[in-house]
């Protein structure tokens, strides 16, 4: 990084540390922080979308749709989320490859599940074996995003379902009395009012989502936990590092990162809550109104 780093013999103390912390591998680790933030930025809206449709399905008039919605919201209640993380990644991967297999190799005769192997034709591999490394990494990341979105969508569906139920019944009845159709009631009355009820649950969910990001490591993405283990250990398979086992300090850095991120999120979410409570017929809204007078 710096020019002084070119000559390793001259390095000592702080200069050595500054060179050490800006080495190529460390740059990769700093990028991995970006990966985590990107995952959060991409996953949160998708999970909200899944949650919204899950909650809508759970409220539906049709039995089958309601069953799907209830099943989706209920799935995270009894089963540890990490089971889903481990399950969905393989299941999605195999599902996608199986679909490609049926489309691209219709006359492939061998069974796909042959004993202990899952074998599809070479053209159905996703991504293709010949694809560059970047594509493989991107595919792995997208699988992780989809998995996170599916699991957190179920949590969000729980919260949003509760929020939709919490909107005062009188509001909806008034709208009906004015002759609004069910779709209009949903769009114009229910959805604008539900957010203030959903916000405490959603803020919690955001904090949980932040704390779930180290699980990326289990999904095979080279995230910050991967790099902390890799760079902190005294040696890897390839070569020795010039320091003893420093994993403790690397994990301490991660801990501080997560604590800081949580704290900042808490402060921002508290502001949003105050903003959304303005003019609402809730205790918080009443308190705000009184504070102005």
């Amino acid at each position, binding site marked *: 990084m710096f020019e002084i780093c070119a000559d390793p013999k001259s390095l000592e103390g702080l200069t050595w540390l500054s060179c050490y912390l800006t080495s190529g591998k460390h740059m990769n680790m700093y990028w991995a922080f970006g990966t985590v933030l990107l995952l959060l930025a991409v996953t949160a809206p998708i999970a909200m979308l899944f949650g919204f449709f899950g909650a809508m399905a759970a409220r539906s008039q049709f039995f089958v749709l309601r069953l799907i919605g209830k099943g989706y919201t209920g799935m995270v209640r009894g089963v540890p989320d990490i089971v889903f993380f481990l399950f969905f990644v393989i*299941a999605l991967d195999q599902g996608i490859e199986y679909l490609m297999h049926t489309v691209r190799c219709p006359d492939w005769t061998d069974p796909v599940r042959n004993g202990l192997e899952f074998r599809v034709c070479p053209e159905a591999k996703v991504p293709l074996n010949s694809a560059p490394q970047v594509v493989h990494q991107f595919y792995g990341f997208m699988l992780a995003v989809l998995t996170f979105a599916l699991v957190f969508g179920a949590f969000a569906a729980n919260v949003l379902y509760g929020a939709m139920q919490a909107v005062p019944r009188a509001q909806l009845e008034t709208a009906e009395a004015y002759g609004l159709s069910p779709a209009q009631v949903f769009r114009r009355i229910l959805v604008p009012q539900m957010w203030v009820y959903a916000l405490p649950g959603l803020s919690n969910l955001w904090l949980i989502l932040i704390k779930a990001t180290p699980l990326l490591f289990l999904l095979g993405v080279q995230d910050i936990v991967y790099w902390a283990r890799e760079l902190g250990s005294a040696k890897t398979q390839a070569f020795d590092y010039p320091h003893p086992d420093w994993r403790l300090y690397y994990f301490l850095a991660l801990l501080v990162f997560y604590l800081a991120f949580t704290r900042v999120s808490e402060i921002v979410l508290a502001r949003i809550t105050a903003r959304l409570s303005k003019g609402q017929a809730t205790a918080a809204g009443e308190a705000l109104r009184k504070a102005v007078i």
Partner: protein
Amino acid sequence: MTCWETIGAYAFRSIGYGERLLPRSDFTLCQQFTLIGSGLIWNIYFGVIALAFGFVLANAIAFAKASHSPLVRKPAEWFIFLFRGSPLFIQFFLAYEALQMLPRAGIDVFGITVQTAWTTKAWAGALFVLFLNTAAYSAEIFHGALRSIPKGDLEAAEAYGLTGFAKFRRIQWPTMLRLAWPAYTNEAIFLFHSTTLVFFSGFPAFQQRGDALYYASYFADKTFNPFVSYPIVAGYFIALTLLLIWLFSAINARLNRHLPSNMGGKIRLRPQVIR
């Protein structure tokens, strides 16, 4: 090998009894059910002990956080923030690395050598982390309940001449517990769920003695088939969750026995407290 023989060989595999070698090929459904069920012993061990000890510490921390003296309140607040604000996964890694740094030969305390090697084993190290973690989460729940004790109850207690410890034992603590119980039930459920993280973090599974998820992922890795072993874990955990809800509802009914039957706090599962 019949199913009964499999159960005999692997039912207690996770705690070191029975067949030493795990099955390597020709996996039967019976083997998967038995081994994953055997791993569940670890989940129950971690969950029950962490919950029992965590309950005591959580009470202490909740009251410390409610204290007027900043010398008592601040450490409690920091403890809760530290454990609730960071991922359990990182806490496991950190604890494992920190415990590894203890001198291998043991520490001399007044001439007696205290062994340290056992602290890096999952049964002790991971249990310790889970204990502190659940204490922090439960303390926050208890603190919230402590603050929402009706003012009238406390004033009534004082009017009857109850003060100090008698007021605490007869009014404050039971009411706090009663108010916190639905949320605490959720905490217990999600603590059991988070015990599955132990063998996926820093703590290694000694001689392949792991928890339910450890064996499930072993089978999934070997067979490339996630559609059998993971649903088995899911099934076991749903059963465990139902058992927990039943147990905690019974306690809840006892805590609320003096109230009219329609007024007791109903236990509703809210997924807000997972780590």
